[in-house]
């Protein structure tokens, strides 16, 4: 226990003994990366099958507050990158984790984040094999930023992509929408809203594996993060060159999420999620897909929300509960709370 400070100081970023102590005690003692080099060296056997491909993705995580009901930045950082691998059809294998830490951050907070990451990685069946820490002066970052990158393997023959979606395919989501976005809005405190909501943050690697096993024809999946379901569907419609129609009445939404949206004038279709995905499967496999999703806790709320259609290529439309119809466009920027 060389680390006796309660808070991170600039000395912990200086390349000396204080940094080494911080890294060893807080990070590598928990993540237990293989080897002692500044690079993980990993058996490539999992990638050796002829035709297997390597999947590689990254995301930075900057959530405020850093800890929130249902998770913390570490949980999102592991789940988000696992999900980016999984929705593309890859089996997630390894993660890197780079931390940018503001001077003054409590070391106890770092320990909690790291513990979350280790737990989530284990549950998701991935290893955090390499990492980095940087310390910046007070006011030069907002607490802690985490950037993860992920490497996975795509089995030979697996070809999931938005461009593969065909008219007639069914759009399935794995549960209620917008819990994460609404939770964060409330947790930030500046709108003075209180809810019992918890983030939906979850790793979806196992769920995707089960889905692909049950519905091998699955065309494409997307995790619903910033921009919500609406943005993911717009992306898919654009890439596939077909239209998508969703049913307002079929959208799974919690009352609190709807309530918060009504108060702030937001549209839940655009709220962020961290444990939700939309998958497009051939109609014939829809039942099997639903059953596979519902068999896991993170897919318990799975339901069909719409389908791809040949008409209005590139456009997403929603049939309102009234039988009316409207375009569900991409957002321009952020959704801002409105008064009118």
């Amino acid at each position, binding site marked *: 226990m060389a680390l006796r400070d309660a808070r991170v100081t600039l000395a912990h970023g200086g390349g000396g003994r204080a940094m080494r102590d911080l890294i060893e005690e807080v990070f590598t003692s928990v993540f237990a990366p293989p080897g002692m080099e500044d690079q993980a060296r990993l058996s490539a056997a999992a990638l050796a099958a002829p035709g297997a491909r390597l999947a590689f993705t990254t995301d930075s995580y900057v959530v405020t507050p850093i800890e929130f009901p249902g998770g913390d930045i570490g949980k999102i950082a592991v789940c988000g990158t696992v999900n980016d691998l999984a929705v593309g059809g890859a089996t997630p294998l390894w993660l890197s984790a780079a931390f940018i830490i503001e001077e003054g951050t409590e070391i106890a907070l770092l320990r909690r984040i790291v513990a979350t990451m280790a737990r989530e990685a284990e549950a998701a069946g991935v290893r955090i094999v390499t990492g980095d820490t940087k310390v910046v002066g007070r006011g030069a970052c907002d607490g802690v930023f985490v950037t993860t990158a992920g490497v996975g393997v795509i089995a030979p023959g697996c070809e999931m992509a938005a461009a593969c979606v065909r008219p007639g395919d069914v759009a399935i989501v794995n549960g209620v929408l917008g819990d994460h976005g609404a939770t964060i809005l409330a947790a930030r405190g500046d709108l003075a809203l209180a809810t019992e909501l918890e983030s939906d943050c979850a790793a979806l690697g196992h769920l995707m594996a089960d889905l692909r096993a049950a519905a091998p024809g699955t065309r494409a999946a997307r995790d619903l993060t910033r921009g919500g379901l609406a943005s993911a569907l717009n992306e898919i419609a654009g890439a596939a060159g077909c239209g998508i129609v969703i049913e307002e009445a079929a959208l799974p939404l919690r009352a609190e999420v709807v309530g918060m949206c*009504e108060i702030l004038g937001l549209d839940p279709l655009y709220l962020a999620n961290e444990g939700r995905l939309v998958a497009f499967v051939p109609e014939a496999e829809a039942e099997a897909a639903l059953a596979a999703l519902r068999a896991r806790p993170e897919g318990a709320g799975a339901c069909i929300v719409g389908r791809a259609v040949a008409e209005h290529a590139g456009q997403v439309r929603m049939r309102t509960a009234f039988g009316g119809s409207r375009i569900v466009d991409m957002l321009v920027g952020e959704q801002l*709370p409105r*008064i009118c």
Partner: protein
Amino acid sequence: MKFASEFRDPALAKALLAEIARTADEIGATKQKPVSIMEICGGHTHSIFRYGLDRLIHDGIEFIHGPGCPVCVLPRARVDECIEIAQKPGVVFCTFGDAMRVPGSTLSLLQAKAAGADVRMVYSPLDALEIARRSPEKEVVFFGLGFETTTPSTALAITQAAREGLTNFTVFCNHITVPEPIKALLDDPHMCLDGFIGPGHVSMVIGIHPYDFIAEDYGKPIVVAGFEPTDLLQSVLMVLRQIARGVARVENQYARVVPEHGNTVSLAAMAEVYEKRPSFEWRGLGEIDASGLRIRDKYRAFDAEEKFGIGYAGVRAVVEEAEGCACGAVMTGRMKPPACPQFGKGCTPEMPLGALMVSSEGACAAYWQYGGARAAE
């Protein structure tokens, strides 16, 4: 959601649509010769597009989208003044999210924030007041924006600030009133409206009688309406029935929320803090007499215009609206958004030229976002 979901029932809507169709046929309304009904309030515009009512309703009913979006009618000069205040050192400029993207002559508030101004979005004037309490070293300015619905809240925030003796809280008052622009519209020789959907939430404050002149002086029916889809359809039906019967009255579809004479406390608070300006500039409509409010002398310590010598208390810059902007014509119902030569070209939600493209209540943005234009095959 109680008092909301019940009024979103598709079965009830279906009956209403059928009855509307019947009544429309009865008075001979057709796509070629439609009955034109203006929903004054941007909230109604939003509901119409959100629920797709414009595409469900009988062909013979045409919605004309009125000037009732306080963001859309905010002139460029006023946005520039906001930014001028927000850029002063030590100022925390608090605003509703709606105003963030409205284009000024060079920047929006969102861009001014990116360029360094301390602009914060709040949900309530009370939140700005709380920031002022917590940051005595800062000068907190609240961007008071909105019609009579919102005006009492800033009035009450000011009286609260006065009670607490806060010296670092002011309101940049841009409150406007509904009846005056309606009168201006009705006086416009190009105008050919058959009836009005009246603003439900403004009316809960001012009651329904301020609209009497519409029925009495101009002979047009007006029905004060709620914001749920059956509220709107029912109100349309009520307008049509007045037309069918050849009468013009002020009716109240939204009686669960709107008292006939409005809200006493709100009206008193407004009267205490605000008084009419001689005239106020509206984007697209120009100066309209007695259509805006200013802070009374008694509360001038809380008036950002006075404190910073800006706006009507300073030298007002003449700021031309953007070239080619047809917002005025759209707002007065003379033009549909897609007919504007800028629509979707020089003017998109990403880079709005006119204010009607900014707010999701703006007619152009609603047409664009909900596909009023592109979906109209």
